[in-house]
């Protein structure tokens, strides 16, 4: 299995390597299915049944229930696939960016603007 094990971790960053991809396979596969509207409808109709169909682990199902993006990433989710999940709850990339950074959306946006204004942002 290709992995980045042994590399110095990057603070605040989860790199999507082979280890993560294996761990998150059922979760990401479920999220991939959300490209289709009928699958999004099926998920919304019965989240538990839909997660069970894809064989998510209990931890992954719990993190889906809580819409906890950091937990989902740690459990092998890939951000592009998770965006298809969180999109159903009306959360875009900035909403989930703020959620992960542990700040409000307003603060998150302000942080980005600040980076635009400094020389070394």
């Amino acid at each position, binding site marked *: 299995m*290709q992995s*980045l094990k042994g*590399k110095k971790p*990057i*603070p*605040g*960053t*989860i*790199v*999507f*390597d*082979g280890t993560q*991809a294996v761990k998150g*396979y059922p979760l*990401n*596969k479920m*999220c*991939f299915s*959300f*490209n*289709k*509207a009928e699958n*999004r409808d099926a998920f919304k109709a019965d989240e538990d049944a839909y997660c069970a169909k894809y064989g998510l682990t209990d931890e992954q199902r719990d993190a889906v229930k809580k819409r906890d*993006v*950091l937990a989902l*990433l740690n459990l092998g989710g*890939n*951000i*592009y*696939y998770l*965006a*298809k999940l*969180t*999109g*159903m709850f009306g959360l*875009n*990339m*900035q909403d*989930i*960016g*703020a959620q*992960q*950074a*542990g700040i409000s959306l307003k603060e*998150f*946006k302000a*942080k*980005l*603007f600040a*980076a*635009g204004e*400094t*020389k*070394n*942002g």
Partner: protein
Amino acid sequence: MAKLIGGVGSSHVPAIGNALEQGLQSDPYWKPFFEGYKPVWKWMEDKKPDVAILVYNDHGLNFFLDAMPTFAIGAATEYQNADEGWGLKPLDPFKGNPEFSWYLIDSLVEDEFDITMCQEMLVDHGFTVPMSLMWPKQELRNQVKVIPVCVNVVQYPFPSARRCLKLGEAIGKAVASYEEDLNVVILGTGGLSHQLDGERAGHTNRAFDTEFLDKLKDEPEWLLKYSNYELAEIVGPQGVEMIMWLIMRGALGDNIRELSRNYHIPISNTAAGVILFENEAV
């Protein structure tokens, strides 16, 4: 003979697609970004390229993690866009040039690049956003035939920056030896610095991006001293997409001039960049 007349490096963030759809070009948030595309629009309208080779990555529309090609090239007569799950309205299909695609694939495999060949290929925002950015009007977009070149920058291991630069050189060689008289433009998309995942989400790096843009024309090898993992730390895991700009740069060869450039933070969670190079022989 076919001729590579120029190249563009550009961001491909989905939010840009929404802004174009809603006509927000003059909105205060978007203006500093779209202003940077004016020279590109003019250049495209003047030069009217026949073919666009568009280097991008798929974000989970066409390719899933069951089989992830490092380099995949489209060889279809038409490429469909589709629902990505979170609301971007799909665009009209794009016309391909399968004969040219197959020539390119043959030439690249001959040059020892192992290409995944795709006769059917959905193209996602990584492809459609640059298309609408280069040619905002549908009628202009319809005049350009496309060759999608999809690069894995989603699941490690990614191809190295060096491999990308070399792939670009091989693409340049293939285009120059194609017999039909076609004007070709190459687009390297993605980046610049950004981070979507983890507690550090929202990370950008103006200093590094600026140096990257400064070196791209005369010293593209500068980026090769960094591994993709090192780049993830410096520019964010998704900022690594900038290695796809090296494919564009490699294809152009050394006789180029820089015609315009723009850099702006923030566009959504990213630092957005655009750069336009022209072949000096044009």
